[in-house]
């Protein structure tokens, strides 16, 4: 098992002929993912890394029976790409682009909810299921190991850091999910935690959060109902209030979304909260026992 993405998922790449699309198609194939097609208007008939290119998602889905798609379109075109995927039956959608207009993200997420589709991102590194040799995303292939720890993160590089430290400590991962750094994204900590909780193979979960918003506080309430060890690391301890720190998500305004309120809520819910990234793996080892 694993969550959201499995080895048998048939994946298309929207924007496969661009630099990013081409590069990550190669990476995904190398990792073992079943990339079955790609789209790029007017490029039907070509191939990229041996994968057939179609003009539209409609044609790609008809030809390949794909149910998952990863989007590399530039932000202004991401909404169209997302709807093209959703309306043509894609039920797992990974949106890589950053700086998608928030109103577009609201529309994408609402439509996906109506259709029962899962959206990862936007502004995400994607998700990876090491035990089944499949991934949809831009994360480096070599840092993950198959295992029983679920990881859910807002931020890409920081999650690599933590996944790598887990791998080095002998703690492999069931699935690593990047929720995305934008203000409005498809998942919540709660939705991903729930999926990990329902996965018999996941024995512990690492949450990588940050200041801003109140997603961590809301997750805390939910975690109280779970019976699974959770370690949380939150970035932004040193951030001054009212400053934006790159991620639109990472902004503290008006006394809400502070690190203190998040850590307090999580600790109260029984989560092991650590203060530095390198403390995550030892804390998880400690929780899981010998």
């Amino acid at each position: 098992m694993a969550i959201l993405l499995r080895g048998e998922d048939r994946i298309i790449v929207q924007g496969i002929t661009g630099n990013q699309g081409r590069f990550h198609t190669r990476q995904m194939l190398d990792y073992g993912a079943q990339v079955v097609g790609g789209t790029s208007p007017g490029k039907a008939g070509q191939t990229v890394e041996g994968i057939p290119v179609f003009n539209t998602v409609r044609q790609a889905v008809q030809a390949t029976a794909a149910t998952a798609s990863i989007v590399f379109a530039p932000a202004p075109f991401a909404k169209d790409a997302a709807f093209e995927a959703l309306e043509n039956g894609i039920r797992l959608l990974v949106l890589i682009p950053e700086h998608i207009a928030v109103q577009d993200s609201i529309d994408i997420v609402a439509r996906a909810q109506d259709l029962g589709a899962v959206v990862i991102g936007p502004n995400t590194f994607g998700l990876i299921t090491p035990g089944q040799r499949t991934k949809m995303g831009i994360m480096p292939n070599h840092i993950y190991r198959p295992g029983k720890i679920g990881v859910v993160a807002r931020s890409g590089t920081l999650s690599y850091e933590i996944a790598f430290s887990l791998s080095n400590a002998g703690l492999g991962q069931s699935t690593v999910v990047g929720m995305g750094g934008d203000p409005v994204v498809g998942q919540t900590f709660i939705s991903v935690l729930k999926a990990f909780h329902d996965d018999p193979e996941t024995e512990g979960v690492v949450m990588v959060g940050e200041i801003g918003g109140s997603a961590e506080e809301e997750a805390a309430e939910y975690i109280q109902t779970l019976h699974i060890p959770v370690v949380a690391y939150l970035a932004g301890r040193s951030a001054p209030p009212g400053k934006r720190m790159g991620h639109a998500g990472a902004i503290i305004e008006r006394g809400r979304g502070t690190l203190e309120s998040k850590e307090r809520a999580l600790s109260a819910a029984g989560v092991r909260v650590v203060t530095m990234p390198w403390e995550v793996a030892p804390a998880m080892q400690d929780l899981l026992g010998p």
Partner: protein
Amino acid sequence: MKQYEYMAKEHLSRQGIKIPPGRVADTPEEARNAVAEIGPAALKAQVLVGGRGKAGGIKFASTPDEAARVAESILGMDLKGFRVDRLYVEGKLDIDQELYVSVTTDRNAKAPLVMASAQGGMEIEELADEFIVRRHVNPRVGVMPYFGKEIAEALGLTASLGREFADLLGRLYQLYRNLDAELVEINPLAVVGGHLVAADARLNVDDSALYRHPDLDTVEEGSALEQKVRALGLAYVELEGDIAVMANGAGMAMATLDAIQYYGGKPANFLDAGGGASVGPTASALGVLVDMHPKAIFINIFGGITRCDDVAQAILQVRQRQGIPVPLVVRLVGTHEKEGVALLQSDGIAAFSEMSAAAQRVVELAGEGR
């Protein structure tokens, strides 16, 4: 991107929401003329901070001469760190009641949120929860008249004022959608002679959607340096300390600041060099850090998309071009790690592989820490 009050009001007015008569004034003379034209008025400093009134940024003038004198006293003053360069001279209102209304995006609900209160005039954070009506907007439906009437009802407005409120809320939501606003707020929403007038307004536009609004007035925020680095396409924030920091990824950059602070150091800045930046932009970013004359520089890279050898190349370039006259600590792991580490070594730089050790070292080198 935030908009000044007078810009926000212009947008409200175009959307059919009533605003008081007003004129922009950059000089006492213009303020005089404005009051001559529209009568007794409030002179409001156009700065992007809350609580202008209490800080002395809003004053009243009954006559043109008084307006010139008052303008003289406000223009050029420092308001919570912002210099006042422009006033908005606005006709005085005879206000019966002050309401509050705003539309913003609720990240957790992934939907627009309407907040309203019958106790307007104060900052919304200072209002007790029981005085605030919060209702999410279903983005599939939008704000229809019934929705506004339900909120008006909850605010205790009369039927006729309720209809006017419902109409206004529909327009406010349209503005929020059409202009890709992060926040559009009217506070106070004044009841004047039984009608609603936007007495003050705030409008923040989603930076990611600015490409859809080429006609929007540009308002720059932050220091000259911040603006310069952002122009390179990098996320950059100035902080108080002396250890300059570059990392790849926003979360990683934040964690790097945290680590410095953890060991007792004080970061000078937040700089997200981005995932997958190539040699050129990385070198430019590093160049900016050098120019800041920090006590030390910390480069923390986990190579995913970013290639470690590209980062090493950038470091060598900056060393050659302008020199790096302060202690430099580099932590480098991930994609093309070996190549990157070798490159640095060839130039006499030892790279760390552990973030904790590297953070500890840079704090020591900066002469800070426990």
